[in-house]
C-alpha cells in the first residue's frame, strides 16, 4: 500500500488532484461546524449581491440566499450522489461482467447482447427516459446515472475476466474442490478488483457531471435543495446580468471533475502492472553506454567481444547481467554459449548491436569489435547500418518477432530494401529465393502467407531467412530451436549447419541444451551468473569438463539412452546478479569450494583454446 502511494504521488498532477480533492472533501465534511448561513433562507432584498460583500463572501443568488453556504451544501450533495452512482454502477456492472466472462458460452452471449442493447441508446436520452419513467428527484437521477454506466463496467470487467478464467490457477481451484461461487469470489474477484478501482476512479468525475446535467435540466434535485447542477440551472436566467451566480458553481464543478480525473489517471498508472514497470518510457534506439576504465584493444577476429559489462539499473538496484565477458568468432565458425536462465547469455548477445533496452540497460565497460571497429558507443546510424547487414539475429520465438499483419514476403523485402536500394520486384524475387534457401516448400506461394498461417518450424525458417536477407557475416542465434519440436529442431539445426558451411557464416549459438551444442558448435563457452566459467573446443569441454559447474550441469541433464535413473541435481539456485557473492559465484553450491574460492577475483586461466575460471578445476587445462 505504501509503495502504491509513493508511486501515486510521484506523479505531480495526480498529487495536485489529490490535494484539491482533499481540500474540497474536508470542507464539505466540516459543514456542520462551519459558521454558515441557512442555505435555503431567502432574503429577496439582498438578491444578486456581488462576491466579497458584507456577510456573503461569495455573494447571493436571485432569491438572496448565501452562495457560499449553497455551494458547500450543493457540493456535498453532488459528490455524494456521484460517488454513490459510481459504486452502484461498479457493483452491478462488475457482477454482470464477471458472471458473463467466467461462464462464457451462452450465458455470456445473452448477457452481453442485453448490455449491448443498453449501450445502443444515446446516453443522455436513456437517462432522461429513466427519470421520465420514475419521475424527477435526486434519488431517481442517481438511479438513472448508475444505470447508464452499468454497461461500461460490465464490458470492461468481462474482458478482464475472460482472460483470467482461462488461466491455470482457476483450473487448479476447481481441482481443489471449489464451486463456481467460491471461485468467482475468492479467485477471480481479487484479481479484477484493481481494474474495478481504476474504472471507478476514471468515471466518478463523469458521473458527477451527469448528475449535475440532470439537475440542470430540473430533473434532479428539486428546489429549494441545492446541488451544483440545480444551482447552475437557477442561475442561467441571470447569466449575463449577474455572472457570478453561474461562475461560482461552475468553478466548483470544474475543480471537482478535474481533480478526480487527475487523481484517477494517477491511480490507474500506479495500479496497472504494465505501467508500473516503466513501460511508458520508450526505450532508446541503442543501449546507453557509460564506459569507465580502459577500452580493450581490438583483435583480428571477425567479431570480438572484449570484457563486456552490461548492467540493469532499476531504482537503487544494480543488476550485473554481464560481468566482463570476452568471446570471439572467426568466419565459418560456430561458437556455442551455454548457460541457464539469468546467466547473461542473451544480454551478451543483445549488447553486441546495442539492442539491450535502455532504460534500464547500461553498457558499463568493454568493447565489441566487428572487423576491428568498435560497436559499443558507435553512433546510432552506424549501428543501424550494421544491424541485419553485418550482424543478424535469430530469436527464440518467431511468432513474436514477425509482424502479424504483413505477409512474410513483404517483411523480407522490407529487410532487404532497408539496406539495399533495389526495386520492389527485385526484392520480392530475392525474398522467394531466400525462402528456397531455407528449404520452405512452395516458396512462390508461401511468400504471400501471413506468419500465423505457418507452423512453428516454418516460421523459424522465415526467421532464419530474415537473418540471411542481407548476407550478414555473423548470425547471433538466441535459443532458436527451444520452442520447436525435436523433429523440427533437428531440421533447423542441420539447415544452420549447411548455411554456415556454404556461406562461411560465423554463428554465435546461444542455448541451454548440451546435445544441441555438441552437434552444431566448434567451440563452447559456459556462462554462470554473468561470466564465462569455462571455454574450449566442444568435444574437450563436454568430455572432460574442467569447471565443477560444467561437470555437474552435464551430469544433471538426462540423456536419451541412459535409462531410468536418479539425476545428480545441483542443490540451491544461481545467485541473483544484484547480490553476487565475492569470489566464485558458484562457490555456495559447489562441494569443492574452499575459503579461497569465496574471496577475491578468480581469473579465467588455461592454455588456449581452453580456459577455466576455477581455483580447483576438475581437469588441468
Amino acid at each position, binding site marked *: 500500500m505504501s509503495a502504491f502511494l509513493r508511486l501515486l504521488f510521484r506523479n505531480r498532477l495526480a498529487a495536485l488532484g489529490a490535494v484539491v480533492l482533499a481540500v474540497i472533501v474536508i470542507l464539505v465534511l466540516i459543514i456542520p461546524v462551519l459558521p454558515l448561513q441557512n442555505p435555503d433562507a431567502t432574503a429577496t432584498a439582498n438578491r444578486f449581491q456581488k462576491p466579497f460583500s458584507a456577510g456573503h463572501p461569495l455573494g447571493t443568488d436571485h432569491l438572496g440566499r448565501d452562495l457560499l453556504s449553497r455551494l458547500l451544501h450543493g457540493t456535498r450533495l453532488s459528490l455524494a450522489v456521484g460517488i454513490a452512482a459510481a459504486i452502484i454502477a461498479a457493483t452491478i456492472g462488475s457482477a454482470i461482467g464477471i458472471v458473463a466472462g467466467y461462464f462464457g458460452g451462452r450465458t455470456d452471449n445473452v448477457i452481453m447482447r442485453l448490455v449491448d442493447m443498453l449501450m445502443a441508446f444515446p446516453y443522455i436520452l436513456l437517462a432522461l427516459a429513466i427519470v421520465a419513467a420514475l419521475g424527477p428527484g435526486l434519488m431517481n437521477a442517481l438511479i438513472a446515472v448508475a444505470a447508464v454506466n452499468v454497461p461500461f463496467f460490465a464490458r470492461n470487467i468481462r474482458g478482464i475476466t475472460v482472460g483470467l478464467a482461462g488461466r491455470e490457477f482457476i483450473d487448479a481451484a476447481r481441482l481443489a474442490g471449489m464451486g463456481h461461487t467460491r471461485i468467482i469470489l475468492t479467485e477471480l474477484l481479487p484479481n479484477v478488483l484493481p481494474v474495478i478501482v481504476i474504472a471507478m476512479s476514471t468515471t466518478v468525475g463523469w458521473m458527477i457531471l451527469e448528475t449535475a446535467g440532470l439537475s440542470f435540466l430540473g430533473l434532479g434535485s428539486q428546489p429549494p435543495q441545492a446541488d451544483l447542477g440545480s444551482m447552475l440551472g437557477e442561475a442561467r436566467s441571470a447569466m449575463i446580468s449577474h455572472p457570478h451566480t453561474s461562475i461560482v458553481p461552475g468553478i466548483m464543478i470544474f475543480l471537482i471533475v478535474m481533480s478526480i480525473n487527475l487523481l484517477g489517471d494517477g491511480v490507474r498508472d500506479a495500479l496497472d502492472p504494465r505501467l508500473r514497470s516503466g513501460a511508458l518510457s520508450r526505450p532508446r534506439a541503442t543501449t546507453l553506454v557509460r564506459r569507465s576504465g580502459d577500452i580493450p584493444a581490438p583483435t583480428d577476429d571477425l567479431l570480438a567481444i572484449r570484457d563486456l559489462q552490461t548492467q540493469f539499473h532499476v531504482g537503487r538496484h544494480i543488476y550485473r547481467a554481464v560481468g566482463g565477458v570476452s568471446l570471439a568468432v572467426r568466419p565459418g565458425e560456430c561458437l556455442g554459449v551455454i548457460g541457464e536462465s539469468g546467466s547473461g547469455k542473451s544480454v551478451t548477445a543483445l549488447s553486441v548491436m546495442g539492442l539491450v533496452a535502455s532504460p534500464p540497460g547500461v553498457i558499463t565497460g568493454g568493447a565489441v569489435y566487428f572487423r576491428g571497429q568498435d560497436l559499443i558507443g558507435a553512433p546510432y546510424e552506424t549501428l543501424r547500418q550494421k544491424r541485419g547487414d553485418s550482424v543478424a539475429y535469430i530469436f527464440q520465438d518467431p511468432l513474436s518477432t514477425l509482424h502479424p499483419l504483413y505477409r512474410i514476403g513483404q517483411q523480407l523485402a522490407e529487410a532487404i530494401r532497408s539496406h539495399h536500394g533495389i526495386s520492389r520486384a527485385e526484392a520480392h524475387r530475392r525474398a522467394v529465393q531466400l525462402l528456397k534457401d531455407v528449404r520452405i516448400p512452395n516458396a512462390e506461394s508461401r511468400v504471400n502467407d501471413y506468419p500465423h498461417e505457418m507452423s512453428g518450424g516454418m516460421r523459424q525458417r522465415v526467421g532464419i531467412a530474415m537473418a540471411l536477407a542481407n548476407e550478414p557475416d555473423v548470425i547471433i542465434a538466441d535459443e532458436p530451436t527451444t520452442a520447436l519440436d525435436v523433429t523440427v*529442431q533437428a531440421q533447423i*539445426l542441420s539447415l544452420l549447419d549447411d548455411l554456415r558451411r556454404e556461406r562461411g557464416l560465423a554463428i554465435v549459438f546461444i542455448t541451454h541444451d548440451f546435445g544441441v551444442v555438441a552437434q552444431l558448435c566448434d567451440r563452447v563457452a559456459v556462462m554462470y551468473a554473468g561470466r564465462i566459467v569455462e571455454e574450449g573446443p566442444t568435444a574437450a569441454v563436454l568430455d572432460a569438463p574442467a569447471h565443477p559447474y560444467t561437470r555437474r550441469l552435464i551430469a544433471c541433464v538426462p540423456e536419451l539412452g541412459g535409462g531410468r535413473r536418479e539425476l545428480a541435481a545441483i542443490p540451491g539456485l544461481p545467485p541473483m546478479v544484484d547480490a553476487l557473492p565475492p569470489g566464485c559465484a558458484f562457490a555456495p553450491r559447489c562441494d569443492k569450494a574452499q575459503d579461497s574460492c569465496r574471496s577475491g577475483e578468480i581469473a579465467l586461466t588455461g592454455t588456449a583454446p581452453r580456459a577455466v575460471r576455477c581455483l580447483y578445476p576438475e581437469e588441468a587445462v
Partner: protein
Amino acid sequence: MPALKVDGLAKTFPLKKPLFGPARPGVRAVRPVSFQVETGETLGVVGESGCGKSTLARMLVGLLEPSEGTIEIAGKAQDTADPAAFGKLIQYVFQDPNSSLNPRKTIRQVMEAPLKRLHAMSGPDRDRRISEIFASVNLRDEFLGRYPHEFSGGQAQRIGIARALAADPRIIVLDEPVSALDVSVQAQVLNLLADLKSRFGLTYLFITHDLAVVEAVSDRIVVLYFGAVVEIGKAESIFANPRHPYTKLLADSAPVVGRPLTAPEQKGTELPDPLNPPPGCAFAGRCPRATDLCRVQDPDLKPMGEDQLAACHHPLEG
C-alpha cells in the same frame, strides 16, 4: 486392478456452424485412445506439440468433458459430480508453475484450499498437514506467508506439487512439470517427484515432449501422434528398439552428445491438417515405409514382441 484405465477415450472440439452449408465435423484433438496405468507405475506420455497430450490430461482430471469413451479410476467410472470426492482420487500438476498460482493469494491460502474443500480439516490440522507436506517437498514454512511472484520457477513448481499432494490423491497427472525449468532445477524437481512417489505410493502419468526426461522417469511410455497412440512400450527399450517409424523419427531427432548432426527427415515435414485429416495412418505422409494400404486403412494397435504395442502396418524389425 489398474489405477487408471482409459477405454476409447476421444475428444472432438466442435467448430462453429457456418452461416450457410452443413456443420463441419470438428477438430479431433484426441482420437480414441485406450491404455491403462498400473498402481505405483509411472506412465510416460510423449508427443510433439499438437498431438493432444494436454487435452488427454485435462480429460483425465475432469477439466474437459470427453466426447467418447470411458475413464476408470481405481476400478470405478470417473465421476466429477462431487468435486470434493473426485479431487481426492486424481490431481494435476501444471506446466507453468507461475500461472497455476493465483497471484493475489498467499501460499498458505493456496495450500489450504484443497485441505478445507476436499478433506474438511480444522485449522490446527491444516497447519500440521501443510508443514508435513512442505517438509516433504523441501520448502520452508516461512514461505507460507508470501505471494507467488516472490518465488523462482523451481520453487513455484514445488508449491504446485505440494498443492497436488495436499489433496492426498492416488494418481497425479504431471503435464510438462519441468519443461519451464532450468536444467539444474529440472533435475531437483524430477528427483523430488521420484522420492515422493516411493514415499507415498503414488501413481504418475507423466506428460512431456522431452524424450530423455520421459525415459529417465517412466516405467512404460506411450507415444502419441496426431491425437492417437502409435506405440506403447517399456521405457528402457522403446527408443532403443522402436517398432513404429514415428517413434524412430523422434529418437533419431533428439540431440545427443556424441552423435553427428543429421536431419532424419527431409520430405513432408508438416503435421496433417487437423481440420482435414487424411484417411488411413496420420503419419503416412511423412513415413518412408508408407504404402497404399497405409493411406487407406488406419492401423490398429497390435502387440509386437513382449510388452510392446504399435499401430503400424509395416512395423520396424524388433
